[in-house]
């Protein structure tokens, strides 16, 4: 694992000193730390959990690792546990959470060793670039629209178009608004994708074809594709592969 040498160095420091690098008290942080100074027993349990988490990562059991690192951090507030939590989130593709966890690490543990802070900033930038973003255009002004991504409600601070972050993968987005039929979109988002989604919602009991805007959009699409089609129509050859790697079924 990249950064393993860095993490082991941190772990050794924590284990040898027997104290936390810094403990994080209750805050709006994504991952809560201890409420007060950890006891020796809590530190001991935190070290054991950290060891279990590391073992789980090396055995390809990331879910167990995440639980162990989270619990270790909650007991000790040790930056190494939070760093490992962020790193493991990144490995399993939970890029938004990984980015936010790196942010918490850099914000709440300002006494990180420079090399570790530098690595954390680098990884943070890397995972931030992998977060996909949907820009929802055309949300209705009336009907108090609510947006769900994979069943979870998306916060709407009122900006338009509304920006929705997502980890890569197949995603389902649904928009509900009073007086309108629901709008649903399903698509595969790649890492770092930036897509604009035109939310077209039919009024209940009406039809989108009643809208003049619909016919204007169709007209524009016909004009565009007609031009493209005119070029391709006169190419009567079979399609030829355009890359050096070719498979014929």
């Amino acid at each position, binding site marked *: 694992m990249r950064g393993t040498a860095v993490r082991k160095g941190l772990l050794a420091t924590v284990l040898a000193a027997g104290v936390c690098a810094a403990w994080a008290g209750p805050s709006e942080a994504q991952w809560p730390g201890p409420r007060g100074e950890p006891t020796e027993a809590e530190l001991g349990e935190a070290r054991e959990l950290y060891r279990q988490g590391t073992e789980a990562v090396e055995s*390809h059991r990331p879910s167990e690792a995440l639980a162990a690192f989270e619990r270790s951090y909650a007991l000790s507030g040790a930056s190494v546990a939070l760093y490992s939590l962020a790193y493991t989130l990144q490995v399993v593709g939970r890029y938004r959470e990984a980015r936010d966890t790196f942010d918490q690490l850099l914000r709440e543990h300002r006494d990180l060793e420079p090399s570790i802070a530098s690595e954390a900033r680098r990884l943070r930038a890397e995972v931030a670039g992998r977060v996909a973003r949907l820009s929802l255009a055309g949300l209705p002004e009336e009907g108090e629209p609510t947006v769900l991504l994979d069943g979870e409600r998306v916060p709407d601070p009122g900006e338009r178009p509304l920006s929705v972050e997502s980890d890569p993968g*197949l995603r389902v987005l649904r928009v509900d608004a009073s007086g309108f039929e629901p709008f649903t979109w399903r*698509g595969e988002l790649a890492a770092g994708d930036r897509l604009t989604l035109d939310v077209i919602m039919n009024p209940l009991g009406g039809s989108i074809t009643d809208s003049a805007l619909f016919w204007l959009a169709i007209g524009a699409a016909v004009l565009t594709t007609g031009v493209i089609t005119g070029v391709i129509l006169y190419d009567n050859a079979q399609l030829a592969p355009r890359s050096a790697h070719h*498979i014929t*079924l």
Partner: protein
Amino acid sequence: MKHSCAPLLLLAAVGCADNAILEMELVLPEASGDVRYAYVQTRSGEVDFEDAWSGSGEVDGLELGQDVIVSIEADDSEEIGEPLAIKLRYCTTERCTAPADEPAQEVRVAIERAFYRGAFTRIRLADLPPVTACAETCEVQRRDIERCAVRGCRAGDTTRYCDSEDRHFCEQ
């Protein structure tokens, strides 16, 4: 609307070819240890990923750590319109023939529909997992790609490649 090869204004950018090509872009992870290659196999129709695929529909020797495009061609009318299954394995050899490559870390991709006669379509797999060491059991991940997420027959980029009646642009 059915397409025609006559010089008339049509509503879709399809030509007069009988075959179809899916251009699959792979953002391959970095090599790790002895694992240096991605071995790609494809099959059309309803297939069992658990079976050992052999025969045609393969390309080997894709070096890890690069972006690569693989052109997958369907020239049989039965294959066009069928689902497409893709196996990608990370191996120490170009065709996963070494003992160390059994088992191998694997990504399985199931595409609801990849081909439309006379059209180029495209998908991009940019979130492939990194290479991780494995011994007796190796990670197997699956990706499912629905037909409206397969790019094609529309200039530029759009969020979805089906119209409001859920027909793919390449079917118009």
